[in-house]
């Protein structure tokens, strides 16, 4: 938890280059890639799958994490007020991954200690979710908000519940299937593949995956965001024309 982003990266690089475990030093024991690097959200998009695969010669455990674009998120809690349920308390979290999935060759707790998992952002329960201005809230309340954030994301299919299994094909070739639901948020996704031995990361690879609206969907969204007043006028014109058309068509019939 204490390590920042830059020191963590240095640790990783150091681990990857200086500490190849095993009896004989190798140039690179982990090579991994994705079946696609672009998920295109089109009109007919209903979700998709991406295969992460690679070769690990070290014989250690493999863990794959996918993190979506980060955004600040507000978590609200309802209380009963005069008989009805009303949002009363809130806690915002800074730079929450919009999507987070972990795949591994085994139970995370058997692969590494919690502090190692936390440092590498492995596992939903070890994610570093930092509250914004939690003053006035008990530690236990903050924990409930954090749990709720993960739980609601899991219900939306955006966070994994259990680690997805990674299968070995033969001795060294591994693969896993990552699912992306229809509501996957567009943005740049970071995919990290770790090789761990004896509870420590011995190698790591990072690659990016882009989730993007394409074609008409992208055009409509960009238009609505960037030229909002023109978009609004077009929406009005569309409604008026179709209303008028309906009158014309059905008056004849």
């Amino acid at each position, binding site marked *: 938890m204490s390590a920042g982003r830059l020191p963590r990266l240095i640790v990783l690089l150091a681990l990857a280059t200086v500490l190849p475990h095993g009896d004989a030093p190798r140039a690179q024991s982990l090579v991994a890639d994705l079946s696609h690097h672009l998920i295109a959200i089109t009109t007919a998009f209903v979700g998709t799958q991406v295969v992460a695969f690679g070769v690990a010669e070290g014989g250690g455990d493999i863990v794959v994490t996918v993190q979506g674009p980060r955004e600040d998120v507000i978590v609200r*809690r309802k209380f009963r007020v005069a008989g009805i349920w009303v949002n009363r308390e809130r806690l915002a979290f800074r730079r929450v991954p919009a999507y987070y999935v972990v795949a591994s060759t085994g139970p995370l707790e058997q692969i590494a200690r919690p502090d190692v998992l936390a440092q590498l952002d492995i596992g939903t329960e070890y994610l570093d979710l930092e509250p914004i201005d939690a003053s006035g809230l008990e530690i236990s309340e903050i924990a409930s908000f954090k749990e709720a954030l993960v739980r609601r994301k899991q219900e939306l299919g955006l966070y994994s519940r259990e680690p997805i299994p990674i299968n070995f094909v033969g001795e060294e070739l591994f693969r896993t299937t990552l699912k992306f639901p229809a509501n996957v948020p567009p943005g740049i996704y970071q995919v990290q593949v770790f090789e761990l031995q004896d509870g420590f990361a011995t190698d790591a690879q990072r690659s990016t995956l882009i989730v993007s609206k394409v074609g008409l969907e992208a055009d409509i969204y960009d238009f609505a965001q960037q030229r909002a007043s023109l978009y609004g006028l077009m929406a009005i014109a569309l409604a008026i024309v179709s209303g008028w058309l309906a009158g014309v068509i059905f008056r004849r019939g």
Partner: protein
Amino acid sequence: MDIYLPIAEMSVNLFLLLGLGGAVGFLSGVFGVGGGFLMTPLLIFIGIPPAVAVGSEASQILASSFSGTIAHSRRGNVDFRMGAVLVAGGFLGSAFGVWLFAQLRQMGQIDLAISLAYVVFLGTVGVLMLVESVQAWFRMRARRDTFTRRHRHLWLHGLPFKMRFHRSRLYISALMPLGLGFFAGILASIMGVGGGFLMVPAMIYLIGMPTAVVVGTSLFQISFVTAVTTLLHAVNNYTVDVVLALALIVGGVIGAQFGSSAGAHLRGEQLRILLALIVLAVCVKLGYDLVARPDDLYSLAPMSH
């Protein structure tokens, strides 16, 4: 067949949307109401974010009310002078409503506000309509002629800024339709409804307009107010999904045609009882969701600012 909605950022079955549009269009054809009060809650029930449901529904109501306005004005059933005053009030109301919507959304209370507004208005209108139509039905069965609505002069009519409305044969204060329009504008922008279910009785019983011009004038006003609401939601909240709106419009237009021919075969009182029951059913469902313990007390929202 699933279709991805670019603004709602979710994929929905296209035939579900067409079916919803068709079913609500059918009902609006039968009863002569816009159907926004049914469509917006239904969209929320199928998982469309409430803000997007309200913004997109405004443009669907625009399509159907514009179509209706043309038909009514051809028969001379629109009081344009009265309509213009209502629209002026409606513009102010909808500007205020969209601002209020953005505030409530930021406070995390928009879903609650939408539900509460629905429960209060649908409950009131549903009960009044049910009582009135059941009474009318019994009177009809007793074979007595009951068409004796008389324009009463209320203190409201005596407010300053008096105006003459030839088509409605009224000489009343312009503040009254202005205020009514303002109120309907707020409802349009917060509830995603045209407000016909409230406007029509208010125009008959409060303003005292002749029934013949009420529906046409109300549709005229709704066209303008929903147009402005669509624009304001698009600019302030980015919540107008044209793909969603188009699917609903297509379904609604077809449903409305079948509905109006089916409506011609049913009795007025029976229709109103049926409509009142539908209104009350939606009200009860929304009311129950407010008091029942939610599955999860926590909810997520992106931090917009």
